[in-house]
């Protein structure tokens, strides 16, 4: 993936060094671009349409959100096999709340139904996660066992709660978090895109100023400007794609009819940024900040690198385990909101095999199972790569068994590449 050709090898690393780009990230982006281009050629350009990119994005969100939490779990040398089951449990709680319980309390379609439901789902996830963390951290039961048990327990607990029924229809406000039902429209999407772009530039500029203040070496101004341009282009480009996916005329007509109006001739509107993708962006930024700029994040990585050293440095590693698993549980709850709203109902098989997808996304994204190493953006990119492979193959018409065979092979291959990469750069594996 990130093989430098020998003849240009001398020059390229210098360029990357000046730009201070992580070559591993570059390799992953390269692989992703390759996947997209190949599928785009095979499908005669259908893969890289606004419509497909939109669908790909909203399908990725649920796994990507959980993958960011899995990074912390794996970095602290644990594993969570129960995330799919916890998602199902949270989904069952939220399904029962908004379909069976809350309409009786507030009335059907009351504005409080969605927020109360979501809070209940998030609290459920956080509590289950905290319980897992307590069993691992304080009772010293291996995380593999605790969460393997959880894999059996929570999905079936959810089954029991929902009597095994498919729960629906869901609250209208709640459905906004699923993707296609809740998008921001063109104007708001552009506005948000510009806010993010400006924020990214300011953050990079301030980081540079801090370095200058302490008289540390900084990269040349052209390199800084290039990175800023790349960031701005990426953000606004993605917004442009979402904004170019137009709402079908039939659907627009129904929206107007629902408001009792008639659609003007030649009227068109685009979806814009889905709320679920916005949630993922917020989670990604928050988790990255947590990982890099807070003590908690520092302790998570220190504990993963050397648990004894962390303990001797006065870090309460047991409580840290509880926090890491509780955060994972919270993110499962959040993913349950997105997944349930996207599917527009709660079914007992929601999130089946998600634990494997989430772990695979984190690992493809460069998280080392030995602990101590992993990035949030890597995990999200890992989730995106897996989802593109899967939808691409479905689009091409690859048989279901081969789809799974390919995804499994890619997982093993990605880890092998990573090991080779680390050997080359002289890191211990």
């Amino acid at each position, binding site marked *: 993936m990130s093989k430098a050709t020998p003849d240009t090898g001398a020059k390229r690393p210098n360029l990357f060094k000046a730009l201070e780009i992580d070559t591993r990230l570059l390799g992953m982006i390269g692989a992703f671009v390759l996947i997209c281009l190949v599928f785009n050629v095979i499908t005669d350009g259908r893969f890289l349409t606004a419509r497909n990119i939109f669908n790909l994005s909203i399908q990725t969100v649920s796994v990507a959100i959980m993958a960011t939490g899995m990074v912390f779990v794996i970095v602290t040398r644990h594993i969570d096999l129960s995330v799919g089951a916890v998602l199902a449990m949270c989904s069952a709680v939220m399904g029962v709340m908004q379909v069976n319980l809350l309409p009786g309390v507030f009335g059907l379609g009351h504005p409080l139904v969605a927020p109360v439901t979501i809070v209940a789902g998030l609290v459920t996830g956080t509590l289950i996660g905290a319980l897992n963390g307590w069993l691992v951290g304080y009772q010293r039961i291996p995380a593999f066992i605790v969460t393997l048990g959880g894999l059996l327990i929570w999905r079936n607990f959810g089954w029991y709660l929902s009597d095994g029924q498919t729960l629906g229809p869901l609250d209208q406000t709640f459905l906004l978090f699923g993707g296609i039902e809740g998008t921001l429209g063109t104007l708001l999407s552009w506005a948000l895109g510009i806010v993010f772009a400006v924020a990214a530039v300011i953050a990079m500029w301030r980081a540079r100023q801090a370095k200058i203040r302490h008289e*540390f070496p900084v990269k040349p101004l052209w390199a800084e400007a290039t990175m800023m341009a790349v960031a701005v282009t990426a953000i606004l480009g993605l917004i442009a794609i979402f904004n170019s996916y137009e709402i079908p005329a039939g659907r627009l007509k129904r929206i107007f009819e629902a408001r009792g109006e008639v659609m003007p001739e030649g009227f068109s509107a685009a979806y814009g940024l889905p709320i679920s993708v916005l949630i993922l962006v917020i989670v990604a930024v928050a988790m990255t900040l947590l990982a890099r*700029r807070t003590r908690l994040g*520092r302790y998570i*990585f220190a504990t993963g690198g*050397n648990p004894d050293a*962390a303990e001797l440095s*006065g870090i309460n590693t047991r409580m840290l385990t509880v926090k890491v698993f509780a955060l994972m549980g919270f993110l499962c709850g959040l993913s349950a909101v997105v997944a349930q709203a996207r599917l527009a109902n709660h079914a007992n098989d929601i999130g089946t095999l998600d634990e494997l997808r989430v772990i695979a996304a984190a690992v493809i994204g460069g998280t080392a199972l030995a602990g101590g190493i992993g990035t949030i953006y890597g995990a999200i990119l890992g989730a995106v790569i897996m989802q593109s492979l899967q939808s691409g193959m479905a689009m091409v018409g690859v048989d279901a068994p081969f789809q799974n065979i390919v995804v499994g092979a890619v997982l093993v291959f990605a880890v092998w590449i990573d090991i080779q990469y680390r050997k080359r750069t002289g*890191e211990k594996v």
Partner: protein
Amino acid sequence: MSKRETPLVELRDISIAFGGIKAVDHVSIDLYPGEVVGLLGHNGAGKSTLIKCLSGAYQMDSGEILINGEKAEIRNPRDARKYNIETIYQTLALADNLDAASNLFLGRELVTPMGFVDDAQMEAETRKIMGRLNPNFRKFKEPVKALSGGQRQSVAIARAVYFNARILIMDEPTAALGPHETQMVAELIQELKAQGLGIFLIEHDIHNVMKLCDRASVMKNGQLVGTVKVNEVTDEDILGMIILGKKPEGVAC
């Protein structure tokens, strides 16, 4: 060293057992300001275990710890740090995946007014103290696993010295070092001693003990053989204490 002065640290009658094996058996030692006390004994004699009760890594079964004559409760490494007790572990206790600054400030990060860790400030402080301890140190950005044994050692030492330690525990600080770096550690010990710190030095090399320490406490099979003033005994006396568990005659302890 006047004995009427209050000791900086007094470990009284400390015992700790692991599954029926008495690792430390009713041991009492003390340490005065500006003094270096060597702890000697075979592997498994209980030196490291005893000292870990003071650094908070282990909890003693019985006995008490007095700091400046007052009873101290040390249940974990955080408590020990509150009493300005700093430890350089034999294993160095570094998180290999983090850089020097993150290790130096681990558990005591400098934060911005917003509550975020202030990496730039911490790196600046690290550069300052490393400039004093090990001026050749350059690898501030790399994870410490990319450092040599001596460089790693200097990170561990910097961590202990930076936070105004009053009591310093060094567990075989020179075991992994070359002669030049060993000399640097020796000079550092003299300097810290002159600043009035008390230092417990766990050491196997008798010559280093004779050179660096004021007193030496020898342990064998979890028990204290005795404490002697280094300038009143010979190498052979101390060797006899370590190997035979025999106290030299006619020496005040």
